[in-house]
Every structure is written in structure tokens, then in C-alpha cells.
């Protein structure tokens, strides 16, 4: 296996693992948000904004994985 092949494999694996872990975290957050909205429908707005911020913060880790795999593909592989 040459280095470019390793780079392609690892850039795919990076996004796969990042999306896997991130989606589990987001699933947990969304589940408890839905639960608390069902319990207290009057504070839906606040709960939703907090959830969106939290989801963005979780998502940013997945996006870091995407950025790293883009770097692997386009910077290391092209160079």
C-alpha cells in the first residue's frame, strides 16, 4: 500500500468516524429536547434555541473531521 492510498482510506474513515460519534451525541441531545418539550410545551422556544446551539457545537467536531479529511485529500495528496 502506498502513501496516497493510505491517505484516501484515512480521509474516508475520518469523516465516517466523526459522523458516527457526532450523530450519536446529537441523537441523545434531540431525544432529551423532545422529551422536555413534551413535558413543558410553554418553554419550547428557549429549549429549541439551546438545542440548536448545542447541536451546532456537537456538529462542529464532525465538521473538524471533514476539514481534516479535506486537508488530507487536497493538501497532502496534491503535494
Amino acid at each position: 500500500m502506498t502513501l496516497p492510498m493510505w491517505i484516501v482510506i484515512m480521509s474516508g474513515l475520518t469523516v465516517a468516524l466523526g459522523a458516527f460519534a457526532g450523530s450519536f451525541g446529537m441523537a441523545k441531545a434531540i431525544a432529551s429536547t423532545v422529551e422536555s418539550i413534551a413535558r413543558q410545551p410553554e418553554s419550547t422556544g428557549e429549549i429549541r434555541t439551546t438545542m440548536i446551539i448545542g447541536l451546532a457545537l456537537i456538529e462542529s467536531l464532525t465538521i473538524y473531521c471533514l476539514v481534516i479529511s479535506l486537508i488530507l485529500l487536497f493538501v497532502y495528496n496534491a503535494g
Partner: protein
Amino acid sequence: MNLPLPAVSGGSGSIIDPYLVLRPFFEHVLHKFHLTHDFIPVFYGMLLTLIIGTFCYFATRNIKDVPGPMQNLLEMIYLKLESFTVSMMGDAGKDWIFLIGSLFIYILGANLFGLVPQGESPTSNINQTVALALFTFFFIHYAGLKSQGLNYFKHFLGDVWWLAPLMLPIHIVGELARPLSLSMRLFGNIRGEDITLCILFFLAPLFVPLPMALFMAFTSFIQAMVFTMLTMSYISGALPHGEHGEEEH
């Protein structure tokens, strides 16, 4: 080994080249000034600013008590932004709405610009997002210094004085991580969207990218909202009596 990926901004030789008008024109202008095509997102940003500015100029040229359609739209946008800011920051948000609103409108327009034919998101280039995030970073400290004076630096030391040598590096690293995460999040999301859309167009040009494009309009909005929301929570963390901003990175 170069991958045969359809790069969104692959320069000449890209797959969608024959249909492009705007980008070759920008490249032509840049070559006249002996600049590389790295500056093309700047052109797209300038075009976007021109569109927004022209709209605002014509909407506010003669303001009436009974607003016309354009003024009505602008007033609606302003009121929505104001209620959004006030719901996040309290009444102190009214002082900073000029920044929050401008950031939101520019980022939303920039994200949606990738879905327009001939367009390309300025925010799908990392230089643009880093510029936005650095501006936000300096503005947060400006807001803190303006509202609290030199007392602002006290909160870097933490609450307990003998923990200050430990808390100071943590706070400084935390501050420096903010522009990094802001810029990387926006860049990665929008760039990922553009690449996905480009690959879908490459695979099935008719009707298949449409639901994805709709979803991308939604995520563009969410990303603009997240950027401004985080800016607001950082600013209200720097203000004196605001709630202590959560340490989000």
C-alpha cells in the same frame, strides 16, 4: 496521485466550465491585474455586498409612514432581527444589533449565494470565514473594554486569586479557540454543502439535486443563525452584568 473529484473551485478544467460566465469574467479581471484566482471569493463577496447595498439604498430612499413593499420587507427583517437579538441578549442587545444584523444578513446571503446559478458561496473559502471570525473576535474584546474599561481583564484571572496562574492560560486558550471554531464551522459546513451539490450535479443533473438544494438552503440559514448566536453569547459574556457566557468552543 490527483483525485478526479469535481472540485467546486477547481480553476479552469472544471467540469461545469462551459456554462460558467461569472467566474471566467472574474478570472479575466484578476489576470489583468496580475493576481491569481485565489481572489475570486472576494469578488463574490463584493458582488453580494453590492446587491444588499443597492436593495437597502432603494428601499430607504424615500421613507414614508405608510411603507411601500420594499420598505415593508426591510422593516420586517429589522424587527425579526431585533426580537431575535433581544431574546438572546436581553435589552443590552439593542446596542449591538448593528453588528449582529449585519453579520446575519451577510452570512445568510453568502451561504445562499452558492445555490444561485453562476454564484459561489464566498464563505466556502476559508479566508472569508477567518476574516469574519477575526473581526468578531476583536469586536468582542472591544465590547468588553468599552463597557467595563480595564476591569474587563479581571475575568481572565478567574474568581479565586490563587488560581489565577492556572486560569489565565485556560482563558487565553479559550478565547483563541473561539475564532478558530467559528471560522472552521462555517467553512466546513458551506464547503461540504457545495462539494455535495457539485457531486450530485455530476452524477444526476436533473431533479436529483433539488431536495438536497432545499436542505442546503435550510442549513445555510441554520449556520448563519449559529454564527450570530455564538457571537451574541460571547458579547453578552464580555458585558458587565450580562449572564456569564457559557464556555462554548
